[in-house]
């Protein structure tokens, strides 16, 4: 990656880059030290503020928050995926009166803030905040899933569909049995990456008073006193980031694994054919 921009460094360049690194480390360390000093002045690092993490109640509240976050994300993902598949099929349908309204609905869903959809469901249908959060996430992510899968189908070689139609499959059968499975597999990394977005968006539940992790932090800080806000918030943020990083890693792992397989099979086949013809 880096070799795009500069040659393998010689002794002089290595020295310059080493000096640069040292200065960079010193600057960043100074910045961190300043932040930590400021925090220490506010008494953030007093042991008593962190002692609350020795209490089981605090952890059980945090665990409840995580549970609520993961439950909303999991249920939303399980509903949004099939719905996304359906919307995708409708979006690329040969029938204009299915395709065009679906397109308008998808544009509408993609262009709106998720939190607005949550508030809409919460107030208009007078549901619980859990249902509002799940509904908001489902509506938005189904639309995104549909667009991702559509991109996957459009990236397939045309012959896949032509072959399906040639052996007498109907257009719908070809989509369902030939194109869709390939498209989903091709777009698996994007779909998993979208799961990170979905997981992150559950935190919008805080705004519609759903008892997810951030709301649990707020409740705890209100109960224990403001001086505990920072420690609890810090731990909650770290948990969020850890969960999301794990899912991101999964997406990267799937991408690597997929690209290895593709390199051996599908992707290389057309180029190989062309080169033999040219020779």
């Amino acid at each position, binding site marked *: *990656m*880096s*070799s*795009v*921009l*500069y*040659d393998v*460094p010689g002794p002089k*360049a290595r020295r310059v*880059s080493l000096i*640069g*690194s*040292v*200065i*960079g*480390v010193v600057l*960043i360390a100074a910045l961190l030290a300043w932040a930590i000093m*400021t*925090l220490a002045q*506010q008494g*953030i690092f007093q042991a008593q503020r962190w002692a609350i993490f020795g209490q089981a109640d605090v952890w059980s509240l945090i665990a409840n928050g995580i549970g609520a976050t993961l439950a909303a994300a999991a249920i939303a993902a399980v509903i949004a995926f099939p719905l996304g598949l359906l919307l995708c099929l409708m979006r690329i349908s040969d029938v204009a009166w299915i395709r065009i309204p679906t397109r308008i609905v998808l*544009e*509408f869903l*993609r*262009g*709106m*803030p*998720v*939190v*607005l959809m949550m*508030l*809409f469901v919460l*107030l*208009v249908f007078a549901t619980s905040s859990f249902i509002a959060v799940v509904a908001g996430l489902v509506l938005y992510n189904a639309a995104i899933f549909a667009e991702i899968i559509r991109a996957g189908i459009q990236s397939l070689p045309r012959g896949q569909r032509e072959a399906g139609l040639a052996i007498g499959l109907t257009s719908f059968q070809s989509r369902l049995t030939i194109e869709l499975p390939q498209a989903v597999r091709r777009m698996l990394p994007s779909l998993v990456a979208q799961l*990170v977005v979905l997981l*992150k*968006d*559950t*935190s*919008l539940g*805080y*705004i519609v008073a759903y008892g997810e992790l*951030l709301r649990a*932090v707020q409740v705890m800080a209100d109960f224990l006193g*403001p001086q505990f*806000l*920072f420690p609890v*918030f810090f731990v*909650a*943020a770290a948990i*969020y*980031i850890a969960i*999301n*990083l794990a899912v*991101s890693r999964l997406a990267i792992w799937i991408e690597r694994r997929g690209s290895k397989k593709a390199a051996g099979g599908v992707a290389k086949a057309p180029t190989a054919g062309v080169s033999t013809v040219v020779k």
Partner: protein
Amino acid sequence: MDVIIESLPQYWDGFLRTLFLAAVSGIIALVAGTLLAAARVSPVAALRGFSMAYVEVVRNTPLTIAFFFAAVVLPRLGVTFQQFEIAAIIALSAYTAAFIAEAVRSGVNSVPVGQAEAARSIGMKFGQVLSLIILPQALRTVIPPMINILIALVKNSSVAGAFYVLELFGYGKQLANDHGDAVMWVLVGVAFFYLLITVPLGYLAHQVERKVAIAR
């Protein structure tokens, strides 16, 4: 439906504030994100490490946490804001910068290696290669994803409404409280104003994408 016409002044005010938040945070995020991307591809290991850590952490942080930090935690640490808008702009631009950095970096990687080799072979320094040869080409490829990030920024600015900033979403919540009988129409009105920004931007991204695709 009358409630929409009746509340047009509030909608307009919220609409302008949403545009303002998105524009200011967008400009800050563009500058900061490009700097982060430059650090990420620089020969200096410390800068690379810092940029990578920042991007990885921020991209996996929910926006609500960033807002919570800027609006609730920072003031208790002694960093107080005269206006909540400033906290919102800090949260939005710090968050968006990470995504811009990723987009610019992938753009840099999409420039053929030969371009940089040619630039180096005529004696250009790293800074010159980056600013004169690579970035102009990279930015061209990254304009469509960049517009998509800006669309997301417009939608993300709605979170500010939950943290005491009266932009579109903030007004939406307030109007919904005041007009308990016409909540649906109030929120449909809010949605309309969001779509007024996001749908044309999406169309623009699509057009630019097609243009770039033909040029390559």
